């Protein structure tokens, strides 16, 4: 099967690499030196395995090979020049030769250089010493390095590795010689380091691009962002180039605080990559972020990766960069070699990139320093010089000593230009300090802004959800809480308003997918493909209902308990929904609200039914269902949470049921001790109850039958109640409520209410009877109990009660 063809993207060479599966890869010799469409006769043919069977004959094979000629560009690095391992060594030698060209520069202190090199160590060493130390063995193959070590002289020579665009045209012209002799006809200009490309003159621009340094061979890592990707100057704030495909994979994260890029370079703490720096308007940064050093922009492989990535619809950060970071208008005159670039998609960004460089001269702000002549639009670039050069070239393939030398020379350049730039004004001095800080970490911003954005984009994508309250409940609630707290704080004091940036996660609309399995025309049957979107039923599990005959008692009990558990779970779901209605109400539209209310009501009714046990019969004689629920810890919590939603009547009913069965519940609660959680909702309910209900409630607590006034010597029910924390607290609550009602409503003949009086007496009697040690410790003692008791009991007993129950709390 042939590989997919990136047809539309590369019009010049429309075919992707294809070869039969069985064909030995190395049989294809180095191609790509030809740039003609040799096999252009069949550009549109899709080769497949059927076309070239494994036992192909020579002709077919050749034909295949021929056809592959014009699609070879991916192969250069594996088969062609790029694959040659010592490529970089040769290139390196050449470069080293350049380095050795005599040139004079004020030699800088080695120490200053080593300072920045030495990040982890904190001792200063002479660079030379370190170099000599580093030269462990003399079998270093690379003569260039040996040379470099031996010279030990920081040199800056025009046309050398570190020649920068600031050096003036003369310098750069000298580069031309040696570099052009390099044999790299087939590699497109995109491969070569942009630093050689000053925005000086257009014509030079084109030449310089060819002068670029040899690319580094790298192993293909498909899909990963290429190293040192083309750093287009601006982050996605600028207008993008119109002529390319922009694939937006995901909504961008929205930050409340807009990224601050439209300002001058920030102190070290902030990560202003050179890209960002470049984007600063009015800054003279519109130059050139690259250090004058070896940086292949893209190797074939990298471009291949990019293309491959683009094919798959994935965008690497570099691609994002390319697409989004283009500034200004495209260069009117495009380098034909650029156009020749095989990566069609790369053309536009590259050209845009060039435009970026082409543009600067016109909009270059008049700077105080016009040190250099117009040919080098270096004036603003001079100012730039004081900017820290964040860009680290990809020198990982170089020997560490070599790298040190390079960096050292860079540093020198920087120092030089900094000296020149001393009087750049405020900005300059500001930047100087900035630069110094930056100097201490020359490796900073290896990770481009693009790449950071890319990673954070991925992370944001993972946070997308259709319903954040469902998917990310705890985070949302946590933030709500925080906001509430800060809001209250702000209200109280007018302290500095702490601006807390909140992460706004993009909300994606829920899409309903109806997955249809792929079907081929004229084929028998369907493809058996099962994926996450289309799971396939693997097992036909049949549910057999259990027979009712041979169930043992234990089983029944177990089932009953399970049934209760299921009920609790169902009711909990209802409860969560009901609790959520308020939020939904706020979010919903006007028209939807009545429906929401209805739903809510219905759910509440369902909840109540669940709790009390839906009985087909009219009355509900049995508390059994409810009691079962209350025996389970979760059930008790459920009741506590549900109570606020129930109507008064329903809630009273629940209360009654609880009081009626309190001793049993207390016994069952011995291990969990969760009953006290009910106290608060109970008290809320009590607040709304009329006295009659309260009385009957008390009755329930005391477990007296309605009419009988049997004065048993010991009321077991009540005593059990009193000995339990919850029970006692509940009793207190009830009593307190009764007292409230009594004292508030003088008109009613509460004092004559026999039942109440009886109950009161009963209660007090019981209270007195129980030894203090056995009495439980209530959650809270209502303050009006004393008044209550004083109505019914004589002074002596009152005193006893006081002490026993510790009713008097601190005499004021």
């Amino acid at each position, binding site marked *: 099967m042939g590989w997919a063809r990136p047809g539309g993207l590369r019009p010049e060479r429309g075919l992707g690499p294809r070869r039969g599966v069985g064909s030995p890869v190395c049989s294809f010799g180095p191609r790509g030196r030809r740039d003609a469409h040799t096999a252009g006769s069949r550009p549109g043919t899709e080769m497949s395995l059927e076309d070239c069977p494994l036992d192909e004959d020579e002709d077919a094979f050749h034909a295949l090979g021929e056809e592959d000629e014009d699609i070879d560009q991916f192969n250069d690095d594996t088969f062609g020049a790029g694959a040659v391992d010592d490529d970089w060594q040769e290139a390196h030698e050449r470069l080293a030769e350049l380095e050795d060209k005599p040139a004079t520069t004020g030699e800088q202190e080695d120490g200053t250089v080593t300072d920045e090199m030495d990040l*982890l160590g904190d001792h200063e060493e002479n660079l030379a010493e370190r170099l000599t130390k580093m030269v462990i063995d003399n079998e270093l193959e690379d003569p260039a390095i040996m040379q470099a070590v031996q010279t030990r002289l920081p040199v800056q020579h025009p046309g050398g590795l570190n020649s920068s665009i600031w050096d003036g045209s003369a310098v750069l012209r000298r580069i031309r010689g040696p570099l052009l002799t390099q044999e790299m006809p087939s590699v497109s200009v995109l491969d070569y380091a942009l630093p050689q490309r000053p925005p000086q003159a257009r014509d030079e621009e084109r030449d310089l691009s060819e002068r670029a340094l040899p690319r580094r061979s790298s192993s293909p890592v498909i899909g990963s962002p290429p190293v040192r990707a083309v750093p287009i100057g601006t982050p996605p704030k600028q207008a993008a180039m119109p002529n390319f495909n922009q694939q937006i994979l995901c909504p961008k994260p929205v930050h409340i605080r807009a990224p601050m890029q439209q300002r001058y370079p920030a102190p070290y703490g902030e990560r202003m990559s050179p890209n960002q720096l470049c984007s600063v308007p009015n800054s003279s940064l519109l130059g050139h972020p690259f250090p004058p050093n070896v940086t292949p922009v893209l190797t074939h492989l990298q471009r291949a990766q990019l293309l491959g990535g683009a094919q798959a619809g994935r965008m690497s950060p570099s691609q994002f960069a390319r697409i989004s970071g283009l500034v200004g208008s495209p260069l009117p005159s495009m380098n034909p070699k650029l156009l020749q670039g095989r990566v069609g998609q790369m053309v536009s960004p590259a050209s845009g990139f060039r435009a970026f460089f082409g543009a600067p001269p016109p909009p270059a702000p008049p700077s105080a320093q016009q040190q250099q002549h117009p040919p080098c639009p270096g004036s603003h670039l001079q100012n730039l010089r004081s900017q820290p050069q964040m860009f680290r070239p990809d020198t990982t393939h170089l020997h560490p000593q070599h790298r040190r030398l390079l960096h050292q020379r860079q540093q020198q350049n920087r120092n030089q230009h900094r000296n020149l730039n001393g009087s750049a004004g405020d900005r300059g001095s500001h930047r100087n300090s900035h630069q110094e800080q930056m100097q201490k970490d020359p490796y900073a911003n*290896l990770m481009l802004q693009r790449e950071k954005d890319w990673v954070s984009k991925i992370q944001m994508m993972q946070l997308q959800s259709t319903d954040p309250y469902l998917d990310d409940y705890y985070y949302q609630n946590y933030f709500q809480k925080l906001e509430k707290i800060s809001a209250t704080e702000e209200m109280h004091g007018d302290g500095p308003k702490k601006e807390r940036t909140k992460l706004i996660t993009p909300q994606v609309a829920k899409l309903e997918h109806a997955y249809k399995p792929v079907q081929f025309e004229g084929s028998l049957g369907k493809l058996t493909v099962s994926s996450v979107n289309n799971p396939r039923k693997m097992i036909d599990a049949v549910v057999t209902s259990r027979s009712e005959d041979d169930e043992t008692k234990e089983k029944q009990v177990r089932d009953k308990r399970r049934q209760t558990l299921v009920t609790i779970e169902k009711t909990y779901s209802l409860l969560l929904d009901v609790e959520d209605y308020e939020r939904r109400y706020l979010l919903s539209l006007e028209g939807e609200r009545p429906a929401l209310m209805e739903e809510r009501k219905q759910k509440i009714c369902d909840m109540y039914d669940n709790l009390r046990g839906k009985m087909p019969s009219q009355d509900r004689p049995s508390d059994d269902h409810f009691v079962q629920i209350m025996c389970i810890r979760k059930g008790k919590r459920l009741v506590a949470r549900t109570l606020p939603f129930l109507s008064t009547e329903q809630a009273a009913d629940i209360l009654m049921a609880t009081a009626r069965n309190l001793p049993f519940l207390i016994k069952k609660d011995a291990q969990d001790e969760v009953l006290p959680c009910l106290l608060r909702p109970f008290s809320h309910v009590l607040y709304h109850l009329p006295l009659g209900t309260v009385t009957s409630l008390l009755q329930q607590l005391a477990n007296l039958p309605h009419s009988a006034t049997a004065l048993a010597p010991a009321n077991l029910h009540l005593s059990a109640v009193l000995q339990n924390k919850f029970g006692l607290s509940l009793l207190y609550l009830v009593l307190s409520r009764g007292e409230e009602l009594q004292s508030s409503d003088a008109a009613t003949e509460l004092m004559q209410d026999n039942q109440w009086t009886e109950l009161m007496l009963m209660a007090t009697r019981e209270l007195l009877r129980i030894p203090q040690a056995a009495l439980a410790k209530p959650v809270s003692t209502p303050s009006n109990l004393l008044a209550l008791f004083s109505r019914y009991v004589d002074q002596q007993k009152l005193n006893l009660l006081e002490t026993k129950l510790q009713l008097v709390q601190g005499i004021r």
Partner: protein
Amino acid sequence: MNYMPGTASLIQDIDKKHLVLLRDGRTLIGYLRSIDQFANLVLHQTVERIHVGKKYGDIPRGIFVVRGENVVLLGEIDLEKESDTPLQQVSIEEILEEQRVEQQAKHESEKLKVQALKERGLSIPRADTLDEY
């Protein structure tokens, strides 16, 4: 730019010195240069620090690329407080020697333990011979 406020993201940690603890027990100290969505890390000028008792030794390692799943935790090192440590730095040879001694001692005590358990008929599988999950 405040990346993803309210979340945990490594982007703010880039270019800062970190201490990374790996699953195999190694401690790496280096400048965090690059990350990705799997929390794979690129550490620059990495130093592997071996701790034995109150001493430690540093082995310079260069550039590390750590696969995210092997990281237990990582934390930023305060450069000012970095030198404020009661630990004593020793040479690499010394610390390796110390480590070897420590490992040996541990090994022997482990052996004794296993022996004792065996005599009593118990066997506790060693953690490193267990499957990981």
